[in-house]
C-alpha cells in the first residue's frame, strides 16, 4: 500500500550518479524520474541530460508531451527568474547599488551549469551591511514588502541572522532574501562578507556574482543547512556542476584551497567535496583532494555524518531515513546557534508560536 507523504529518490540519485543510464530507461521509468526531478527542483538538470541522451522523437506521444511540457515550463521559470533579477537591479539603481546575486540567481545570470530550471523565481542577493537600510528602502519603494511576522520572528532575523526577513513582491509574489553575510551572525563560522564582496565579478550580462571559489564555498556552507532531503540532493548537484565547470581553470583549485582557509570554511568545503565525489563521482585533482582530505573531522564524526547523509539523500523508505533527515535538520540548527540560544529558540518555536 502507498506510504503517505514519502518520496523515494533512489531512481533519481542513481541517474545523477550515472547519467548514461538515462538512455536505457523504459518510458515508465523516465516518466517517474521526471516527477522526482520536479520535486527535487532538478528539472533543468534532467532536461539538459534528456537533450543529450534521449531521442525524444522516438518516445510514445504521452511521454514526448511530458518532455515538451517540461521544456516549456523550464523556459518560463528561467524567464521569470531573469525578470526578477532585472526588477531588483532596477530598484537598487535608485540608491546607486548593484547587489551581488547568490545561488540560483547567480548561476542563471552567469550562465553556469546549475542555472536553468530551478522552479522558483525566488532570489537571494547580498549587499554590504552598512548599506542594508538603503537597499531595504529602495526595495520597499518598488513593491516588495515583508510578510506578516511575529515580533519574535522579526527580532530573530534582525539580531541573529545573516539576512533580513524574506521580502515578497506584492504583484509577482516572488520571494527575495536580502543578505549581508552568507552565514548567520550566531554561527561558529564567520566568513568575512567584505572579502566576498571585494572579490565579486561582473558577468557578461552585467550582473555581479561571487568569484568562482567563493561561489563554491558558499554552496558548500549552505549544503545540508536547510534540513530538507530534496534540497540536499539539489545542493550536491549544484556543487558538482560548479566544480566540473570551474575545474577547467588551472587557478581554480589553488584559489579554492586558499580561500577556504582564509574564510574559515575548510570543514564545509570538506563535506561538500567529499559527498559530491561519493554521490556524483565529481572529479577532483589529486593534489587538491589530498589537501582537502586533511580538513576531515575526527573519524567517528566523519562516519556518523556519512551514514546520516547517505541515508537521508537516498530517501529510502524506512524509518531510519526520516531519523537521518531529522538529525541533519537538528545539526543545521546546532551550527547556526550556540546551545543556549538554540534551546531558547526551539522552546519558543515548540510551545509559544
Amino acid at each position, binding site marked *: 500500500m502507498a506510504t503517505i507523504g514519502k518520496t523515494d529518490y533512489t531512481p533519481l540519485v542513481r541517474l545523477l550518479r550515472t547519467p548514461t543510464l538515462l538512455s536505457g530507461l523504459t518510458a515508465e521509468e523516465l516518466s517517474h524520474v521526471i516527477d522526482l526531478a520536479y520535486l527535487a527542483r532538478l528539472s533543468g538538470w534532467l532536461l539538459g541530460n534528456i537533450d543529450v541522451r534521449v531521442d525524444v522523437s522516438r518516445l510514445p506521444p504521452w511521454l514526448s508531451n511530458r518532455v515538451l*511540457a517540461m521544456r516549456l515550463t523550464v523556459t518560463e521559470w528561467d524567464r521569470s527568474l531573469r525578470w526578477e533579477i532585472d526588477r531588483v537591479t532596477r530598484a537598487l539603481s535608485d540608491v546607486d547599488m548593484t547587489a551581488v546575486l547568490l545561488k540560483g540567481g547567480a548561476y542563471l545570470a552567469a550562465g553556469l551549469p546549475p542555472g536553468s530550471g530551478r522552479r522558483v523565481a525566488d532570489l537571494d542577493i547580498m549587499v554590504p551591511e552598512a548599506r542594508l537600510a538603503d537597499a531595504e528602502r529602495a526595495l520597499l519603494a518598488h513593491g516588495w514588502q515583508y510578510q506578516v511576522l511575529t515580533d519574535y520572528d522579526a527580532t530573530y532575523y534582525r539580531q541573529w541572522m545573516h539576512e533580513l526577513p524574506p521580502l515578497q513582491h506584492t504583484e509577482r509574489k516572488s520571494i527575495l532574501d536580502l543578505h549581508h553575510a552568507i552565514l548567520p551572525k550566531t554561527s561558529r563560522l564567520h566568513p568575512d562578507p567584505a572579502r566576498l564582496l571585494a572579490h565579486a565579478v561582473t558577468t557578461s550580462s552585467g550582473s555581479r556574482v561571487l568569484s568562482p571559489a567563493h561561489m563554491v564555498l558558499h554552496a558548500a556552507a549552505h549544503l545540508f543547512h536547510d534540513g530538507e532531503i530534496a534540497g540536499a540532493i539539489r545542493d550536491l548537484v549544484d556543487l558538482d556542476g560548479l566544480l566540473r565547470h570551474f575545474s577547467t581553470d588551472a587557478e581554480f583549485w589553488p584559489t579554492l584551497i586558499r580561500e577556504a582557509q582564509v574564510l574559515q570554511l575548510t570543514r564545509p568545503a570538506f563535506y561538500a567535496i567529499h559527498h559530491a565525489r561519493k554521490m556524483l563521482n565529481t572529479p577532483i585533482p589529486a593534489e587538491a583532494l589530498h589537501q582537502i582530505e586533511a580538513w576531515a573531522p575526527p573519524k567517528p564524526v566523519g562516519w556518523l555524518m556519512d551514514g546520516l547523509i547517505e541515508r537521508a539523500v537516498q530517501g529510502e523508505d524506512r524509518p531510519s531515513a526520516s531519523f537521518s533527515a531529522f538529525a541533519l535538520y537538528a545539526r543545521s540548527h546546532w551550527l547556526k546557534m550556540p546551545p543556549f540560544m538554540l534551546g531558547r529558540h526551539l522552546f519558543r518555536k515548540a510551545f509559544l508560536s
Partner: protein
Amino acid sequence: MNEESGHALHALSSDGVQLEIGSVLVRIRSSLPGVSEHLKRFYTGFSIRPLPFGHYDVSIVGTPGLRRFIRPQATLVANSRVPFLPLPSALAGPLMEWGINWCFGQCGQTSLAVHAAVVERAGRTMIMPAQSGSGKSTLCAALVYSGQWRLFSDEFALIDTRTAALSPSPRPISLKERAVDIIKARYPDVVVGPEGRDVEKQRFVHAKPPATSVARAKETAPPGWVVFPKYVPGARTTIERVARAQALVRLADESFNYNQFGRVGYDRLVDIVRASDCYSLEYSDLDDLLPRLAALTAA
C-alpha cells in the same frame, strides 16, 4: 466493463491498476470496495490494465487498525501528497474522482488546463469556462445526454501547447444540488451513483459518461466556440457576444496553469479565441436554451 479490464481490478489492492483517460494514464490503488465498485459502475469502456504506473498516482487508503470498525474513513494520497482531510469510507469512489481532479489541476499538466466543460459537435469543440456552481456541469450533462454533443469533460479544457486542439477526458460528470434532480428527471436512463455530500457539504451524484464519448476518448478536436454559462434562477435565456480580448482574459483567469507555459500559454489562448465565436449566456430553462444553442452552433 470488458473482461480484461474487469480482471485487472484484482490488482487494485496490491500494485494498482492503470486507468487510461484520453491521453492521460492514472495509477489507482485502493483496497476499499467503494473504489472497485465505482470503477465497475462508471468506467466501462475505459482501458484498465494491471500496471503499476501512471502520470498521476492516486491511492485511496482505508483507516488502519481497529478504527476501521467504527466510522471508517478514506484518505486520498495523490502523488505522495494528502490534499484533503479524510472522508467517510462510503465516499471512497467519489474521493478517487476528486483525487484525479486534484492531480489534473495541481500536479503539472502536459496541456494548458482551463476550468471549463468541453463538448464537441461536427468536429469543433465548445469550451464553457466557469466557476463551480454556475451551472456549467448541468448544461454540459444536458448537451451530451441529449445525444447532440460528444463529452470531452465537465471540468477540464485540456489544450495542446502546440496546436491548441482540445483533448477529451470523458470521466463521470459531477452533478450538484439542483442539477441532481434536473438531470435525473430529464434523462432517467442515465446511470448515476449513490447520492452523497461532498467536502463542501453539497449534495452530489456522479453520472456515467455516454459510451460513444468514451469510445472516442483519443480523438482531439479544434476549438469552435467559447461560451461563458451562468444559471440564474427564473431568468429568461440571454445570449450575448463577448469580445475576443475579453474572452481571452476570462480564459486565462480560469486556467489552472496559465503561468506554467509563459508566452506559449498566451499564444494558445489567442489561437482559441481567434478560432471561436465567443458568447456569454444566462439561463434557467434548458428546454428554451438547448434549441437556441443548437441553432447558434449549426454549421
